[in-house]
């Protein structure tokens, strides 16, 4: 059945907060096995869209399917297939890294022996083993991202949804995260992630969607979206940025 269903399908997702429209009807099909980048400027509605897609935020309208399972009608099955790393959300950070992984694993009904073995491997690969008994609240920003990724990967999900996985991460950790994601995608998994770092998206993604003002502006394979130009050029054109003339802010020069 996975052959006919996209890994993630969104239809008409919409959300409004206190009168402002955050997301105004997003349709998206993420093919199974793809590496999908969701691009957009700050405030474009990326986090809201992804939260609605994974069951963290109830949409005002529209629906989301994970491999054919409706996230809002059949959440148990859909959530089993999903691995999620939300952004701007705390972890249970008064646990140590190992404790946090064990908690998440058991919470998903995994066998304790498997949890132990995978947690040890993940901590080792992500270079978090040295942290020992340090609580996650005392981790650096990059370490927090890595332990969040480990939590999302632990139960071997079919679809991985990551919100800003490369934000506030140093180049070494970013390279590590990139490697792990590439291996995961090569093994048949689907990755959807949001970002506004063009360079990473161009390097990793097979498909791209550009979101601005709560709607999808461009969507397709990365070559279709680029159309022979650089992704950054397309992005700035779509989003409609302005360029400084040099006249303003003259007081900045000493």
């Amino acid at each position: 059945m996975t052959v006919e269903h996209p890994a993630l399908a969104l239809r008409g997702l919409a959300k409004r907060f206190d009168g402002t429209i955050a997301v105004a009807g997003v349709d998206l099909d993420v093919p199974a096995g793809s590496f999908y980048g969701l691009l957009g400027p700050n405030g474009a509605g990326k986090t809201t869209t992804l939260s609605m897609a994974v069951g963290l935020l109830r949409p005002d309208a529209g629906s989301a399917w994970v491999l054919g399972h409706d996230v809002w009608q059949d959440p148990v099955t859909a959530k089993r297939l999903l691995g999620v790393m939300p952004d701007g959300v705390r972890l249970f950070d008064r646990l140590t890294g190992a404790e946090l992984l064990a908690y998440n694993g058991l919470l998903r009904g995994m066998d304790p022996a498997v949890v132990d073995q995978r947690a040890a491997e993940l901590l080792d690969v992500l270079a978090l083993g040295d942290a020992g008994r340090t609580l996650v609240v005392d981790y650096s920003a990059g370490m927090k991202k890595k332990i969040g990724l480990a939590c999302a990967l632990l139960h071997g999900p079919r679809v991985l949804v990551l919100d800003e996985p490369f934000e506030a991460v140093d180049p070494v950790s970013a390279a590590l995260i990139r490697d792990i994601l590439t291996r995961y995608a090569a093994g048949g998994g689907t990755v959807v992630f949001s970002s506004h770092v063009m360079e990473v998206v161009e390097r990793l993604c097979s498909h791209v969607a550009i979101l601005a003002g709560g709607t999808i502006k461009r969507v397709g394979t990365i070559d279709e979206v680029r159309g022979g130009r650089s992704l950054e050029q397309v992005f700035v054109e779509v989003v409609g940025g302005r360029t400084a003339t040099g006249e303003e802010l003259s007081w900045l020069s000493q």
Partner: protein
Amino acid sequence: MALPVSADATPAAPVRSVSARHFVRLKLRVMGNNFRGQGWRIALFVGGALLGLWFAASGFFLFAAPGLTGNGRYAVLIAAAGGGLLVLGWLFLPLVFFGVDETLDPARFALLPLPRRTLVTGLFVAALISVPVLAVLIASFGLVLTAWSLGGWSAGLVAVVGVLAGLLLCVAASRAVTSAFATMLRSRRVRDLAAVLLAVTAALLGPLQVFGLAALREADWARLTGVATVIGWTPLGAPWTVGIDVAQGRVWAAPVKLLITVVALGALLAWWSRSLESAMVGAASAGKAPVRRGVTGGAVAQLFPRIATWAGRDRFGALVAREARYWWRDARRRANLITIAVVGIFVPVLINVTGGDFAVEGGAGFTAAASDSSPVVVTISMVLVGVLAAVTLANQFGFDGSAYAANVVAGVPGRVELRARMTAFSLYVLPMLGFVAVVLSFLLSRPEWIGLTIGGLVATYGAGLAVNSLISVLGAYSLPETSNPFAMNSGAGLAKGLLTLLAMLVSVVVAVPMVVAAALLGDAWLWLALPVGAAYGLGAALLGAYLAGDVLDRRQPELLATVTPRR
């Protein structure tokens, strides 16, 4: 790219200086923005203001009574005792029950080039803008009325000065003490010490009340007036009694007492300013945690604390283990556990040792009252303790904040979630309650009442868990993500109060059968109370988890949204 930079690197002097006015306007603006588009918040605020006014009015008439009746004999007593209780209330209530309104979080000012004096004055003046301050102001003007009617205009004017100084003292005391305790609870080294200190300080409230009430009962008014005169010379009573002193012809006392108040105020502000600095820096870095080595066992073995090793290595067990760790590691939750311990001891002692009098015509002193306590009174006091313990869970999801997203993403069934949370909390609370029951029975020299006390406690606690589970799912609210465990969002203090009140009322109603049984069944109940109470409590808790779990399943995302702090 190297541009010539002028050698003069000192920054230009600011054109305008920052004053307390800016802090006041900032606070009003933040409060106003919190209300925007949130009808229920405005309603809560108005409700709280009315409640405050009601208290203010009753306080006013109490303070004004000597003036209105024209009888100056008890004026000093009322002013000193009432004013002293006000200061003590401002000191302890935020620590034990309510928390402080941290609309203006000091850490937000860390990067601004503000002198410490400006910052402290600004935050202090901003702290004065609140409903409780207004209520106390209104109430204490009863003292002004008394002084004016007893001693004319001059006494009234001095009383105004005194009352205003006293109000400043109240606010400064509450800020200084909560800030100092917050600093201590944050620091990893003295955290446990702070917890013990807090417990002891709060526990002192109990005996103080016992002795106070016992003294009242002895009713030697002349001697009490003597005590009040002494209190009037401490910072607790000084500001409140100056007006009466002038009215009664002790004009020389007024400047001395005002000086005492000002010195105390200065000391408190200096103390606050010191801990404030550490709060500001503490937000940036809480210091490096010691890297504890010696990790034994796999990840799963590490998750389970000793208190929860019995739990299965499954979903339920993981939730229990995580909650058990959180009750210990999270400063906010620890503060709540300490409160339960304190309240659990002083409420029953208060009711049975002193309050027994109100139920039974007895009267002379401590020991007589103790033997006058009855099974009904004991059961009522146990009901109160059980309700107060369970009400801690009324906002259990608020403690987690946005971290609760992990449970939503994992799709944890609501019933498992709630049962696990009840279990983990009970791991700490049930032993405490058992201790209270045993101690109380021996304190009353009625060891045969142990079954009665434990039965009553467990039944109410279980019923309270059930009620509070439902409330925690339906009425959750977010707590600020600051490092101050006493901090509340503006407006949330009131929401918290009303919610707590509601939870307690419903829990008491659910626990009424235990009191009725104690009243009707007589001696047979002494034996039946334990098994029946335990069954009642367990049954109620399980039923509560069953019903509230169903609600939780349907509103997990909404719950997550309400407990996520707005940024």
